[in-house]
């Protein structure tokens, strides 16, 4: 059963941007797309464990701030070296003005 966690307010994230969310000893990245949809992935790059929330969101791509590795944050697909391994993704849900992420 999905455990829904209240992560942030919708307005905490600008359009085409990302924030970091830490929960239960793990770190996540929550994105707001140019189409005003919300997505959630693991917070650390699969290459060198850098926080993706410090990176740049370009359309549906998150770029790691350290080495320019890129992922499609909608499905976690690794798009550009030096990242080779995909990113874990999590469901999101909007309730009022809150963003919830589905863990477990």
């Amino acid at each position, binding site marked *: 059963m999905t455990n829904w966690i209240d992560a942030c307010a919708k307005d905490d994230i600008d359009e085409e*941007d990302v924030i970091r969310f830490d929960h239960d000893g793990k770190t996540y990245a929550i994105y707001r797309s140019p189409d005003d949809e919300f997505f959630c992935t693991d917070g650390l790059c699969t*290459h*060198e*464990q850098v926080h993706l929330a*410090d*990176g*740049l969101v*370009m359309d549906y791509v998150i*770029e790691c*701030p*350290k*080495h*320019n590795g890129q992922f499609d944050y909608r499905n976690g697909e690794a798009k*550009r*070296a*030096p990242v*080779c391994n995909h990113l874990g993704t999590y469901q999101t849900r909007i309730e009022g003005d809150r963003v919830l992420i589905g863990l477990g």
Partner: protein
Amino acid sequence: MSKRDYSLLGEDARRAVETGLSAAEWYHTEIPRKEMKALMKRANQPALRDTIILFGLMIIFAASGIALWPSWWSAPFWLAYGVLYGSAMDSRWHECGHGTPFKTGWMNDVVYQIASFCMVRNPVTWRWSHARHHTDTIIVGRDPEIVAMRPPALFHIAMNFFGIFDAIKGWSRMLLNASGRLDPEEATYVPETEHQRIIRIARIWTAIYAATIALAWAMHSILPLMVIGLPRFYGAWHHVMTGVLQHAGLAENVLDHRLNSRTVYMNPISRFIYWNMNYHVEHHMYPMVPYHRLPELHEMIRDDLPTPNSSIWQAYKEALPVLKRQLAYEDFFLKRDLPPTAKPYREEFHRDALGTPAE
């Protein structure tokens, strides 16, 4: 401190991983997210302008050199062409490897491939090598791109002003890769999935060089090699002159780019050739900021950084005595003062590594 082992397979490499120096968290000057986002934002226009100028000048200089060949009047054109081929391509390789100059991905990739060929750096291998350089900047045994090791090999560096060791190593590595093999050190930072790409590119390059040599043979002239290959020797001096200053004489095994990188104010021509990599502390702190935004980033964080060197000349006046002293005493290095507005160096993170600074 014991002798350093810069090999990626040696004792220092093992120790760096064990002590947490590798893949560690580094100091960053704080910048509000909105401003950082604005700085990282991509644009095509500045890099398109610079690339048109660069390739336009290369065509003009090479055509003039060919037209005047074999007269000595062709020499200035070759020297100019050589600097663009053997030095400006170094910075294009570097920047496009980061994927930041152009907004459009394929433009970065095209310039990256051309620049990699000119610099004789396999574009796959060197993308990974440079990623490691940014993860473990000047960490002994981890960083494969340390130019001035301790004690500094000054003869080696001097010869590289004419590309001697770097270019020959590049071509040797190309032939090794073209034969289907990788150097054992390469294999430590390039994943296996990329090995076939390395080999394929090396074979394409080998074919290009073979065709160029065949043409020179048929023409009984080195002219084709003046256009492809030899500029890596006769035009290398500028990229070595600026590149040595990036980290030489500064600290090793630290986690603060203010201690191991150098920002140097340079003239506009050098900055064009070097694509603003003179803002090197800034580049290492925030590698995803495109070259054309680095002057703004510099203005934003300069109060937290050591005073930049005022010119290439002044930077060498500072660095050379340090390198000279390291010949006899390799723990010696330059630790530059921070302005009163800066956050202090976190000594507790690198007290053991710092050794004896030259204040």
